[in-house]
């Protein structure tokens, strides 16, 4: 339970950076922290203390395997999610560089030619 709580705190830190900070790079870091928090949450769902890799070998008993192996599905999901996060991050950084070229600033409050 403590692990889940700390995980949630990590998510809130990311959300705080995204909402409150004005610097574009800090906002990007906020998104990255939130993505990592969610990935960590998925991994925690399949986590088991002193668990073994979920590979069934011939000399292994099925019952002990079920009771000691970690859940492999969240790990597969997280791999996909990390790749997606990388794509989003790359696009965000590219946008930040282009925005800096156009506006000459990283401050989101000065980048306000459109009325929200």
């Amino acid at each position, binding site marked *: 339970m403590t692990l889940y709580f700390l995980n949630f705190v990590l*998510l809130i830190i*990311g*959300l705080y950076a*995204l909402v409150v900070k004005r610097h*574009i790079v800090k*906002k990007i870091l906020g*998104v990255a922290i*939130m*993505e990592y928090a*969610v990935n960590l*949450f*998925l991994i925690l*769902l399949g986590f088991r203390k002193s668990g073994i890799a979920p590979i069934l070998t011939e000399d292994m008993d099925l019952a002990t395997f079920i009771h000691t192996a970690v859940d492999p*599905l*969240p790990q597969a*999901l997280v791999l*996909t*999610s990390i790749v*997606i996060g990388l*794509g*989003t991050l790359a*696009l*965000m950084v590219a*946008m*930040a560089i*282009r*925005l800096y070229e*156009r*506006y000459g600033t990283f401050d989101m409050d000065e*980048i*306000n*030619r*459109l009325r*929200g």
Partner: protein
Amino acid sequence: MNTLLPLFTAIPICSAVLILIIGKFDKKNFPRIWSLLTSLSLLFILVVVWDKGTIIHEMGGWKPPFGVVLVKDNLSRMMLLIVNVVAFLTIIYSYVYIVKFEDYLRFFTLFLFMLAGMNGVVLTGDLFNLFVFLEIASIASYALVGYGVDAEELEASFKYLILGALASVFILFGIGMIYSITGSVNMADVARFIVENNLGGNNALLMATGLFIVGFGLKAGLVPFHAWLPDAHSSAPAPISVMLSGVLIKVLGIYSLIRIFYSVIGITPVVSYIFITMGVISMLVGAFMGFGQDDMKRMFAFSSISQMGYIAVGIGIGTPLAIIGALFHLLNHAGFKSLLFLSSGAIQTSTGTRNLSELGGLRKKMPVTSATSVIGALSIAGVPPFNGFWSKLIIILAAFSAGYFWLGAILVFTAFLTLAYYLRFQKNVIFGEPTSLLKNVREAPFMMVMPMVVFAVFCLLIGIFNGWIISNIIIPAQGIITNQLGYISSVLGI
């Protein structure tokens, strides 16, 4: 038959990669013609699978709930129809419109990735797969919104990107929550687990519900999550505005909400109430903000928020009649809002401006565009016999018959507001006298006018043959939504 389903995502992705490779040698014609052929082939496959009932495809031969399944039922076939028809006509329109950007390669590559993502979202029967396709469509659309790389476009794109990434995080968190309770990410299997164990009031499920409402609400642009929508819609190139407003917010937002809350989690009174509240606020905020806009595309964007509100109210009321109205309005909105955004693109290409105060008297200079814009405006304002009238009428009748009298009154009031600001659009743009700047304006090229005429004919025909459309397309889709157990048994085969 069922092996045709993966083609809806495989063909656009393969075409996109092919365009990237061969487009290096033939930069101009190959991307345009090949993406047109791709879209045409998708329409052809849709015709083949159209009336074959529910089709399940198990990816890689793994049975559900272990493998990923693609499900084509009557709801997804309706969404596939909307997505692929709008995409086809938009590609025809882009044929000339995109000339001014001088970069065909990346535009059509990203466009096809977005199309693949949306087809995937509609077809998939797996929550995590839905997230993956949603991200494919979203990331392509972030890049396309900022396609012009001007200051305003990049700013809009970055705002959209930040809020979109936030939405994705929330959706993935919600999927993780669902997995922690049910131990499955297959939609039908999750639904079976929730129904069998009667998990309606489970705390983790409530948290997942909240996360999904925020996540998909952000994608759908419902108030209070609408901040990105007017910027992104007005800054994007016209074909992309059409795809965003005509299909993307519906597929990624409304369709996903319907599928998850009706077919998977199960609708509860609290969720219905949230939908109705968000819908009412969206309707009113969108309509009032629409009045104050000088930029034509911003006005259309706010009107999109307002019309999304109608759909959300219909889903929230939840009676079969209300859902028929919501789905019919979804179909109609794809038609007339695509038409209006295409018209705004044509007007901007011909006159060089899209500010209402600088335009006027286009009736004589651009007769076809004027005629189609008037049809679009009358349709969205709900003037009979155009299609918008019938779907709004059904939603209003459903609200009254379900006992929501105040809600019906607000729906009628918003319909009049919509009429008012579209009359303002007509008065300032189509009628009146041309300003001195517009002396040498000419009609838009044929390839841009043709899709607009097709959309206008759709608006009129759907309005006239509304009974046929409702009984053949809408009511089968509504049958899928209100029959949760039927969805479970048809996918899992039990």
